[in-house]
């Protein structure tokens, strides 16, 4: 059984950004262009990675403390 397409369309709009909005915000991908690869550092977290993760850290810790572990 599937959730009906018409209702699903409406829900997609309400829950998230539309594809048109996404396109205008996808500048994030351009950063991937600068993804420099240095094999000697491949197994160590990069500074860029650390700084990105630290931005999410607080939120992740909060959600971890709720019940995200039980869900996966």
């Amino acid at each position, binding site marked *: *059984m*599937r*959730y*009906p*397409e018409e*209702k*699903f369309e409406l*829900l*997609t709009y*309400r*829950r*998230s*950004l539309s*594809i048109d909005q*996404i*396109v205008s*915000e*996808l*500048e*994030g*991908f*351009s*950063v*991937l*262009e600068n*993804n420099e*690869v240095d*094999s000697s550092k*491949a*197994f160590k*977290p990069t500074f*860029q*990675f650390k700084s*990105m*993760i630290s931005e*999410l850290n607080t*939120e*992740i810790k909060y*959600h*971890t*403390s*709720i*019940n*995200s*572990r*039980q*869900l*996966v």
Partner: protein
Amino acid sequence: MELSDEQKKINREDFISKYFDFFHSSELAIIRDRNLKEYPNLTYLFGEKSEQKVNRNYWFIRSRFIQPIIHQGSGKSEDSTLAKVDLYKILSCLEYSIMIVKPIVVLNNGEPLIYDDTDANYDPKHVEIENITNAQLAFQLAYAFLSSWEKDYKRIFSNDEMWTFLNSTEEIYPRSEDSMSYLDEHIAIIAYSVKASALPIFTNSTWWRLLCIYGYKQFS
């Protein structure tokens, strides 16, 4: 023989559709059972034609944002580090396409969830369950895609040992008792950064980290 772009799109939609069927018949039941005691009124359904929407977004984003970057890379063979990075971009793109659509709909008492956090009946835990469930689908589909890749990828990633690794925690000290596993962490990052335009960067980095750590353990 090189497949046409049209055939690739048909094949990918077929792949996504079959994985959705698998997830619906196995994983969703596990998720429902885990939440049953605390959230007995929640039901989980796939949206009609959601595989088409995911596939359409995937090819659009891939052609517009990923393909130009891949073409700038110099290496295409599987043992090229650059080719590996390209693959992680594709995996992130697949995850991102799923999180735009969020194919799994969670219903509360048969009704859609309330997403307006100013509404008195808004329940953030319900929304969290929906986001985490879709993020789990996103990761597992991307992983299934990776392990279906030819040659080394299929050999390395189609085994239980990889899942054991993904469910382990990072060996850092001091470690709190509720440390997230690599898998939990990746799924949480997908789920909680879903509305951020920087999601591809996060998931690309976490894919890179996941697979580099595994490669290090496997081959060092």
